[in-house]
């Protein structure tokens, strides 16, 4: 369940869970979040929530709506975004700590008509406790985790498919953990002798297509060379490799398609 935390200067004023499809913000009393201040327009902005995503829209306010310092008309809210209206701040929080077990990450679920109108939806009837989703009426499944930032009312359950302790689940960060030093290849023979090539990409192919090709894969725990095609296999430090991936060590000498090269780690 995403929420907004309203504050002014350093004082936290209140926490508003985003349970409805439209959460209005403004000076007039009918707003869901009423901010009684002349710098705020009668109807200043609205947060539209579709299942687990929220969008902020400025409703033509006099003084404007800002997110992280930038003036916006319509903005797709990301966890941690700070909405600024006059002197007030609304922090958007969309990730709850330890809401569900790891295994529920990335679970594919069927979207039912009408589900977009309420956060709770229920794809299957007889699923046991392992399922995240429950009908709105019953108490939520929230496992015995440390009490999440306590809402006073029981939290309606929601279709959480990627509650995030981890940051963005995909955005395939191809590069390895920062700990992995950068590898490089230096040619020791052939026409381009002396030339150096840094292994920044996840995969770097070497050799002559159709004759002999090997690939060096950059993985979180090191660089690995694997034979791709050709009748001859790569030779590392004088030993011919088999079909398996072989981890490269600093200063290994590789022989491939008649060219000798050295693998080394930079700094």
């Amino acid at each position, binding site marked *: 369940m995403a929420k907004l935390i309203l504050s002014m200067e350093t004082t936290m004023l209140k926490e508003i869970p985003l349970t409805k499809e439209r959460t209005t913000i403004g000076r007039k009393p009918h707003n869901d979040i009423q901010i009684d201040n002349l710098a705020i327009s009668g109807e200043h902005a609205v947060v539209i929530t579709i299942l687990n995503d929220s969008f902020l829209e400025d409703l033509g306010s006099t003084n404007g709506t800002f997110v992280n310092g930038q003036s916006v008309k319509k903005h797709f809210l990301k966890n941690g975004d700070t909405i600024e209206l006059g002197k007030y701040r609304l922090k958007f929080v969309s990730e709850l700590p330890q809401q569900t077990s790891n295994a529920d990450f990335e679970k594919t*679920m069927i979207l039912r008509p009408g589900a977009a109108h309420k956060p709770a939806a229920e794809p299957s009837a007889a699923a046991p406790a392992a399922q995240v989703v429950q009908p709105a009426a019953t108490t939520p499944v929230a496992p015995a985790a440390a009490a999440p930032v306590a809402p006073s009312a029981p939290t309606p359950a929601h279709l959480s498919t990627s509650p995030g302790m981890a940051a963005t689940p995909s955005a*395939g960060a191809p590069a390895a953990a920062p700990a992995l030093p950068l590898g490089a290849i230096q040619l020791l023979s052939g026409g381009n002798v002396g030339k150096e090539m840094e292994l920044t990409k996840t995969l770097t192919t070497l050799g002559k*297509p159709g004759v002999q090709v090997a690939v060096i894969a950059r993985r979180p725990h090191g660089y690995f060379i694997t034979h791709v095609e050709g009748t001859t296999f790569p030779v590392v430090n004088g030993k011919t490799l088999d079909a398996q991936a072989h981890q490269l060590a600093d200063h290994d000498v590789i022989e491939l398609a008649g060219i000798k090269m050295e693998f080394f780690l930079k700094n």
Partner: protein
Amino acid sequence: MDMSAVLDIVTRSDPGMVRSNNEDAVMANPLRGFAVLADGMGGYNAGEVASGMATALLGSELDKAFVEREPSSMDGSGKSWAHVTLEAEMIRVNAAIYQAAQSQPQYAGMGTTLVVAVFHDNRVTVGHIGDSRLYRMRGEDFQQITRDHSLLQEQIDSGLITPEQARHSQNKNLVTRAVGVDPEVLPEIHDHAVLPGDVYLFCSDGLNDMVDDEEIGMTLGALAANLELCAMQLIQMANDNGGRDNVSVILVKVKGEYPAARGWWARFLAWFK
């Protein structure tokens, strides 16, 4: 027609780094020239049952259908036998899984996505339901050729969010169509022309959620000469990036042309097959 001379096919499936069981299922029939990938969901581990049923049923029904008649033969409506069969069989699989889900409490709510492709007459007929994908690498050009049946895709199509915003969405993995969750289902079926050299990649979201399209395309480009290695590498990349879901791939490389037999003599002979 024996398609195994023209197509190289590799299938591979992995539970990933987080899940204890694998609810994806993959199968291929190189002789008849088709392959099926299914990503099961719902219930408590019953996703495995749903995806298993889908690949088994489609595997056997499509095989029978294409022995009986060439996939490219046309019927009165102008649709190929491949197209007509895919549609009918996907609907039939949906009914079977739906029935099973209704009949057993432990299967309640189970369903699966589906991507199935039949190669015939220098083209491929592709049917899909859900968010498992088919991509094509042609030369340097890598693109997704199925459109996800997902909430995110519909939001992108209606201009509500951009593809970049979709990457940060918390509404990932919500499909708008699935097999076995409703008594009726609407498969999406298209024909695409095929050129020798094309490489097709079927994958479950365990791959494209962990590895971005650019990396996937680059891997296909680098390793198309060795499909087994390519499949292993794709799965390894998904796992290295977290492997938060089961990950499955099917790779099909087209090595040459495969026109359907034409001319009265060829058709005459086909009667006697």
